[in-house]
């Protein structure tokens, strides 16, 4: 709320001239940059991606080769897909630490029902989807009905889902050849102009398109933003806040199952040991992608860019011959920089 004195000199002007409320000082160039970044949250990660690609291209000529770039995209597909659901949750000012566990549980169930019970591929995939949705319902109900902080809820369910996955699978890995071909179909690829593209990558991009559409073009998307922005204002504006949040966790759960399908194709197996870093990596992608952990601000495409930035740094540093530890170091620095930039951008509000 402003407390600046209102301009009483304007009182005797005709009604129409009163257009000055607000902007009194011309904004500095830095303020203008901040306002633009505020308006287009995916802009700064996009710049980082382009600059880092140029830098790694200069370090090693193989980096920008079509073969290498399509490899980066394949490596990023699983985290990129997980980051969609994670973005939805973070937009509501939540966080999901259980995404990787939910994904792995769904893959193990799909592989289990297919190999142990002979379910056909489509049915096994459907089972994975049901498991994904169920994990979303559990998280969503705990967050909305019991009013628990998402961080704590998903820390708990992370352990629960992990344990259930290990109990269900006996810790065993099911190899790709033992499963119906459909379950690992996402690992198959086709070639376009020398670039190898897996169906998993195509699926991920289709999911981005669909969810980005829902976020930007439907009232559901608008309500997701409004709830994350200021949930009490959203409630007073007539939005059913708990319903929106629940729908977000359930949608995210379905998306985690889809990420699981991409994972099975990528590693050609269903394994309780695959993607153990996925929980934090998905959050990393979202944060680097410019979505605010405080909710209500961000763009879905930013998360794909964030996942790509992580992939580019890992691949580029290893091609340039650096110790893998430097990849971890670089990603850590990126996260902290991204959060600092977000804090700075958020001050544009005041």
């Amino acid at each position, binding site marked *: *709320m*402003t*407390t*600046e004195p*209102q*301009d*009483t000199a*304007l*009182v005797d002007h005709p*009604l*129409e001239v*009163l*257009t000055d*409320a*607000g902007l009194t000082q011309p904004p500095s160039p830095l303020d203008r940059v901040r*306002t633009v970044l505020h*308006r287009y949250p995916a802009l700064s990660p996009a710049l980082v991606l382009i600059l880092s690609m140029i830098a790694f291209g200069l370090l090693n000529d193989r980096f920008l080769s079509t073969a290498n770039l399509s490899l980066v995209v394949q490596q990023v597909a699983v985290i990129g897909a997980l980051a969609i659901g994670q973005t939805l949750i973070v937009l509501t000012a939540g966080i999901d630490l259980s995404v990787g566990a939910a994904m792995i549980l769904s893959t193990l169930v799909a592989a289990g029902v297919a190999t142990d019970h002979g379910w056909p591929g489509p049915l096994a995939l459907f089972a994975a989807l049901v498991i994904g949705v169920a994990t979303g319902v559990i998280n969503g109900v705990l967050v909305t009905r019991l009013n628990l902080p998402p961080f704590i809820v998903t820390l708990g369910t992370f352990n629960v889902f992990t344990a259930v996955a290990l109990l269900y699978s006996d810790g065993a890995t099911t190899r790709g050849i033992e499963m119906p071909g459909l379950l690992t179909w996402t690992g198959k690829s086709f070639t376009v102009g020398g670039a190898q593209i897996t169906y998993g990558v195509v699926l991920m991009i289709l999911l981005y398109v669909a969810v980005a*559409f*829902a976020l930007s*073009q*439907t*009232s*559901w998307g*608008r*309500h997701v*933003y*409004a709830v994350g*922005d*200021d949930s*009490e*204002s*959203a*409630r*007073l*504006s*007539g*939005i*059913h806040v708990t319903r929106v949040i629940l729908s977000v966790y359930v949608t995210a759960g379905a998306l985690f199952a889809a990420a699981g399908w991409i994972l099975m194709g990528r590693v050609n197996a269903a394994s309780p040991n695959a993607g153990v870093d996925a929980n934090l990596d998905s959050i990393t992608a979202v944060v680097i992608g410019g979505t605010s952990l405080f909710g*209500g*601000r961000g763009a879905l495409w930013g998360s794909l860019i964030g996942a790509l930035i992580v992939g580019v740094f890992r691949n580029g540093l290893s091609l340039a011959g650096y110790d893998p530890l430097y990849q971890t170091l670089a990603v850590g620095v990126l996260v902290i920089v991204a959060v600092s930039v977000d804090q700075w951008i958020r001050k*544009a*509000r005041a």
Partner: protein
Amino acid sequence: MTTSTATSTPILEARGLVKTFGHVVGLAGVDLELHAGEVLAIIGDNGAGKSTLIKCLSGAYTPDAGQILVEGRPVEFHRPDDARRAGIETVYQTLAVSPALDIASNLFLGREQRLPGVRGSVFRMLDKKGMRDRAKQQVEDLGISTLQSMTQAVENLSGGQRQAVAVARAAAFGSKVVILDEPTAALGVRESAQVLQLVRDLRDQGMPVILISHDMPQVFEVADRIQIQRLGRRAAVITPQTHTPQEAVAIMTGAMVVT
């Protein structure tokens, strides 16, 4: 106006509303009647229960006891959306606007309009341009001159402009009752006058208005009746014709007791 409407069924009525917050008593059994085409002002000291009262009427709070009636029919509001559907629009003291969304999105928040045809029915696409145009039209029709571009994010607006957004939303969509909780608190002299004119216009169109304000001259200028809240109770209902502002303040502070 007051005498002629006193006998008809109130548009909005509250009986014996009680609302407590732990040990704090917000409302200790409050009545309220709002008649067609009148401006009912609610005044009272800070913490007298004014906002709590209107939050019960707008569905933001569920009262612990008491009854709310719309046009004589008992209603139960479980959430703000219920009251909005009943035609009651509210400008809250906290404004309840979404900072990151633009003006048009805020005006239509929770009642977005979709595109015609399959784009709207199957793909659920928002009619963004339509809502922008209608928002602009509504703001103009309401005589609110402080809002320019409907695509401006509300967080970039001044306090007064935000208040204008909240007032425009309530005035544009209210179909039975408009409730304004200190709608001029952040406004300059001219903008306050605009809101007061808006209140009169609404009344002249037959829309009853509840106006909470600490500004005595404003209240005595625009109100048909004045309900005075004191310590969670209704201390009195007066009119600008029967009482002076000094007497109203005396009732508010307990220096004068009305029987």
